[in-house]
């Protein structure tokens, strides 16, 4: 996760870089470290370093990681030629490297040559079955082709081995939600909450899924998770506030006539309604 100070630092550097204030390399390092996706910026400024032979050689061995970073960014921006050039340079420097092989496979993927890319990834996995990036690329490729069930298969296979990888769980959860497989999605979000109990995003998403599943028990659970989201965000999450209101009214409809315990919980609803009003005023 990116903390607020890190984000501020990135934005500050980005501003500085955009206005020609230097610090390009620091910016690129930070983006790389935080795994941000600012491909256009990386492409533009990374290339400016790579095209300047003096600046480039000043980097020393870091030069090659920059080539890799720029190559990936270029693929993301569909600048296939730039990516190709970068990969060619890397290939010359590291012949037979798996890491470069990965880039080549990604280039095939970026050009939309699915079956070639698939073959490349498979052969990479044969050499090293524990290459997490390749596993993930494969799932991503299936998703990009619109083959959602294959993506789910890949992700499940991957998670069977690397079951502590919460990014993969998150991806799987989002896929399940998009397919309206809410029970499976709920499981994934539970897994995410377990691995990072203080991230409000997961609480909120879990509450959404549970609310959608419906049923009295689920609605009550959903309400609790909306409440925890409110607590974790300090009441800033509009979605959670709405969620509380919706949950309460749904529960009220289901328990019409036998109202014993909703007296106390109604206060939460009125409070969130008030908070919403303040937000919209």
């Amino acid at each position, binding site marked *: 996760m990116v903390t607020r100070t890190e984000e501020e630092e990135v934005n500050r550097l980005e501003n500085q870089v955009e206005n020609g204030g230097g610090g390009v390399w620091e910016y690129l390092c930070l983006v790389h470290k935080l795994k941000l996706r600012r491909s256009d910026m990386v492409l533009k400024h990374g290339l400016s370093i790579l095209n300047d032979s003096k600046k480039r050689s000043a980097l020393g061995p870091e030069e090659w990681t920059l080539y890799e970073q720029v190559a990936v960014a270029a693929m993301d921006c569909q600048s296939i030629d730039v990516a190709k050039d970068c990969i060619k340079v890397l290939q010359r420097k590291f012949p037979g490297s798996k890491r470069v092989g990965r880039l080549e496979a990604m280039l095939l993927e970026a050009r939309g040559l699915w079956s070639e890319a698939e073959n490349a990834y498979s052969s990479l996995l044969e050499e090293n079955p524990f290459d997490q990036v390749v596993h993930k690329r494969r799932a991503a490729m299936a998703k990009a082709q619109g083959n959602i069930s294959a993506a789910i298969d890949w992700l499940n296979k991957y998670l069977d081995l690397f079951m502590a990888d919460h990014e993969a769980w998150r991806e799987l959860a989002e896929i399940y939600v998009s397919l309206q497989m809410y029970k499976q999605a709920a499981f994934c979000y539970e897994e995410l*909450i*377990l691995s990072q109990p203080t991230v409000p995003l997961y609480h909120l998403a879990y509450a959404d899924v549970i609310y959608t599943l419906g049923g009295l028990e689920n609605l009550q659970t959903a309400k609790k998770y909306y409440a925890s989201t409110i*607590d974790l965000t300090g*009441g800033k999450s509009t979605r959670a506030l709405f969620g*509380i209101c919706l949950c309460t009214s749904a529960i009220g409809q289901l328990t019409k006539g036998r109202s014993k315990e909703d007296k106390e919980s109604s*206060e*939460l609803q009125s409070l969130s309604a008030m908070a919403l009003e303040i937000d919209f005023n």
Partner: protein
Amino acid sequence: MAEDLVLDTAIRDWVLIPLSVVMVLIGVLRYFVSKLMKGSSQVPDPKIVKEGQVIIRARNLRAGANYIPAKSFRARKAYYSNEENGLLHVPKGQAQNPQAQMFSDPNMAMDMMKKNLSMIIPQTLTFAWVNFFFSGFVAAKIPFPLTQRFRAMLQNGIDLSTVDVSYVSSRSWYFLNLFGLRGLFSLILGEENATDDTQRMMQMSGFGMDPSKTLGAEKDGLDIVQHEWALPKFEQRAEAVLRKLVK
């Protein structure tokens, strides 16, 4: 003793400096040899990778148990620790002890041997070489006095109690170099050089951790976790937050 021993400059030129240079060169050579021998990176066993991941996930479950509903927690607990095919359940008899594992996996023994060879052989050879050529030299003098206790450290190989302790024998100079050149190596060869003997010795003693034992421990830990859902408390906390906000 007031009278000083005067060391021949030839000793400096032919003992002290060659010894240091040779030690450095051997260290560099050993670094490259061990790099060469490491060569092909071995593929880790999928079972071990999976066990590591299971442990992380089970640990997460233990730590965050109170954040998921009771039903989900029970389902997960059963998944991890049931007696038939739970992820954390290690069938009896299948738990290998590390020794047996080492013998069953020749790669592992091979690795150990390579490591040991690259450490021990050069050391023995240089020690023998120093002993043969330079035994008995007083090679250097440190510029400050020391107590008798340092005699064993600095005058290894000279059995004279009358020599002042600040004189360093050649064999001791060898030892000082052996352990003292780490900083220099990390300067020449980069931070993570392979010549770090002290660290390697530590690794050796830590070798032989049994993964099935950690699995069992994790299972026991999971068994005693009392699930107490934390979410009902959050409703009150959310109310408090909102109350503050509305005001």
